[in-house]
């Protein structure tokens, strides 16, 4: 009988010995550029300052970068800050079946370990893809009970994927990789009580540093119990009452959970996305939002339930207001982080348009669907039907749409054209000799400050 941890590590290690299938490699590159964008976009957040301030208090060595920042910190705090920024604003990727945001913690491992392990681009992309895939597989094996109960699955499963990424970067043997995932299983992090605070995005950051520690300990010969996943008092049965190890270890190389990863076009809960998408479509046909008399959105009932705030007072509240997203779409013809800044949310134009917008819940409308109708002051009516919102599984973001999002995240901080340069590097990652260019472009100064 094979132990779950050993079978898991063997399956992943075998996958790492051959090239990724083309469609998996493509999705890995899309996840990669997306999370590079979100981590840079949030790099000036006070939470990143707090993490870097803590590193300074402890006098750590300047070993590894943090995307978007010029400071260098040790491996631990590089992982913490990068994973935190990547997941801030919930603007990163989402694997819909598990609600895992896999890429932030995995980019954090790569960022923290790249200076010491110097992976080729191909190796980094492999470690990235398998780190995402492995945590998603752990996630599906204990879903949905694990998340429903209140665990933040992005951290609790992410830590195991992070150990895999770190293990591949450190060239662990299959036996060492088995120990690494077993050690990581005891380092889970993340309770949903912390949602709405900086601690939520801390979870993938800490998953990354814990995963690295697990892989390093395994490299030094530390052992974990062979049956740590399946035993009573082990990981899986302690974390969930519903466990299916076939979903963790079955069909390696045939079933790729990474292919079900999605990217958010807008920085708010996914439930509001069809409405915002509808607003953007109407904005193509309505030159001036002042000409609108009233807007009605026929939508899934979850929209008013979860995103029903009619008049948000700040950016955080606006993230729970589908109506704000629609009003901002019609006023600004674009919806990015700028539309959720506190000052933008309270301006007169969006406030007035929000007051003229109504949500009409309808159980016959699907979750990724919306019917939007604007009655104009001249009596005419402009309508649009969003069958599947952009960013949904049925209508994934196109590469161009993904780049539109990433550009809005990166260029305002690092300068015009930087997002395109980074995208070109990620596109060519499989042939890159190392990650030096990538991380140099993630830093605020033109010249590389890579040691």
């Amino acid at each position: 009988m094979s132990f779950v941890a050993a079978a898991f590590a063997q399956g992943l290690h075998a996958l790492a010995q051959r090239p990724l299938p083309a469609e998996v490699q493509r999705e890995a590159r899309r996840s990669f550029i997306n999370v590079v964008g979100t981590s840079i976009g949030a790099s000036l957040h006070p939470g990143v300052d707090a993490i870097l301030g803590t590193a300074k208090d402890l006098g750590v060595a300047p070993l590894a970068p943090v995307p978007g920042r010029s400071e260098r910190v040790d491996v631990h705090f590089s992982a913490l800050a990068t994973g935190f920024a990547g997941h801030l604003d919930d603007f990163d990727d989402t694997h819909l079946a598990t609600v895992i945001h896999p890429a932030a913690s995995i980019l954090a491992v790569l960022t923290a370990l790249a200076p010491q392990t110097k992976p080729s681009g191909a190796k980094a992309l492999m470690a990235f893809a398998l780190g995402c895939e492995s945590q998603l597989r752990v996630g599906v094996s204990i879903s949905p009970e694990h998340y429903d109960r209140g665990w933040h699955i992005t951290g609790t499963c992410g830590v195991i994927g992070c150990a895999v990424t770190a293990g591949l970067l450190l060239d662990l043997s299959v036996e060492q990789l088995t120990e690494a995932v077993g050690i990581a299983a005891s380092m889970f992090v993340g309770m949903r009580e912390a949602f709405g605070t900086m601690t939520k995005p801390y979870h993938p950051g800490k998953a990354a540093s814990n995963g690295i520690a697990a892989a390093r300990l395994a490299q030094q010969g530390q052992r974990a119990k062979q049956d740590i996943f399946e035993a009573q008092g082990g990981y899986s049965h302690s974390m969930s009452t519903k466990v299916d190890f076939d979903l963790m270890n079955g069909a390696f190389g045939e079933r790729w959970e990474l292919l079900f990863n999605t990217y958010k076009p807008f920085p708010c809960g996914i439930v509001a996305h069809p409405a915002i998408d509808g607003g953007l479509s109407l904005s193509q046909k309505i030159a001036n939002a002042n000409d609108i008399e009233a807007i009605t959105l026929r939508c899934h009932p979850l929209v008013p339930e979860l995103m029903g705030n009619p008049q948000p007072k700040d950016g955080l509240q606006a993230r729970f207001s589908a109506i704000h997203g629609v009003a901002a779409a019609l006023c600004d013809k674009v919806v990015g982080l700028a539309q959720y800044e506190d000052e933008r949310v309270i301006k007169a134009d969006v406030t007035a348009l929000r007051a003229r917008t109504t949500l009409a819940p309808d159980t016959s409308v699907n979750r990724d669907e919306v019917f939007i109708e604007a009655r104009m002051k001249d009596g005419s009516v402009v309508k649009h039907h969003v069958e599947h919102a952009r960013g949904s599984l049925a209508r994934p973001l196109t590469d161009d749409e993904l780049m539109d999002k990433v550009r809005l995240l990166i260029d305002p901080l690092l300068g015009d054209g930087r997002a395109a340069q980074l995208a070109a590097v990620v596109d060519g990652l499989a042939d890159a000799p190392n990650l030096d260019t990538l991380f140099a472009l993630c830093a605020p100064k033109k010249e590389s400050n890579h040691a």
Partner: protein
Amino acid sequence: MHNPAAQSAISDALVKFATSPLEAAGAHAADAAAGALAQARASFAALDDAGKKVAALLEQQGSGPHDARVRAWVLGAALSTQRASSATPVLAAVIATGELLSSSEQEVAAAAAIGIEAAARILAAVDSDEFRVRWNVASSLGVLGAVLAVARLLKLDETRTRHALGIAATQAAGLAHNAGDSLAAIETGKAAADAIEAALMAKHGFTSAPASIDGRRGFAALMAYRFDAASITDGLGARWTSLG
């Protein structure tokens, strides 16, 4: 969608306990803590295998030997090879933090006493066979006591202490199945390190859940199978359960 609780009587009580002057009844607890600290420092002189592995790990990461987070991890792992309890991460964390801040021996002993008492009381509130069969008691409870002790040494105000407690609670971890192995010692040492990180981040303005212990998606809801709030709050500060 779960809207986290805006406040919690449990957090308030623990935070007040950690930030207030010791009541007279606490003097004995501080004496007892001073004794435990002396013992802990003595046993740290000889590093065991788990302690050495952790020390090597952390040096590879660019964290120097004077990094308090690192020292707490190594010390906690070393202490755990004898007999770990929820007090172990507290002792490791206050020794390392006391060195970082050059705290007085009196301050360190008072912080240790408070952290040990808080962890013991939270354990009493959640203790059951179901809890012990799943989780490492020393690491999962110890991180909560340790963070309150470190917050006290850092002289954090009530708000920041509450955030520190939340950052620690969300990473309460460690699996019962590793009991008796060197990995359990590493888990327990890690709890001390995580507590120092949490308190320092809160000092810098990092935020967390107000009801991290007793909220609907918090520590007790996810890891415990019973929750007796009175075990935490009854006579807190006046009566010392950890002195028995």
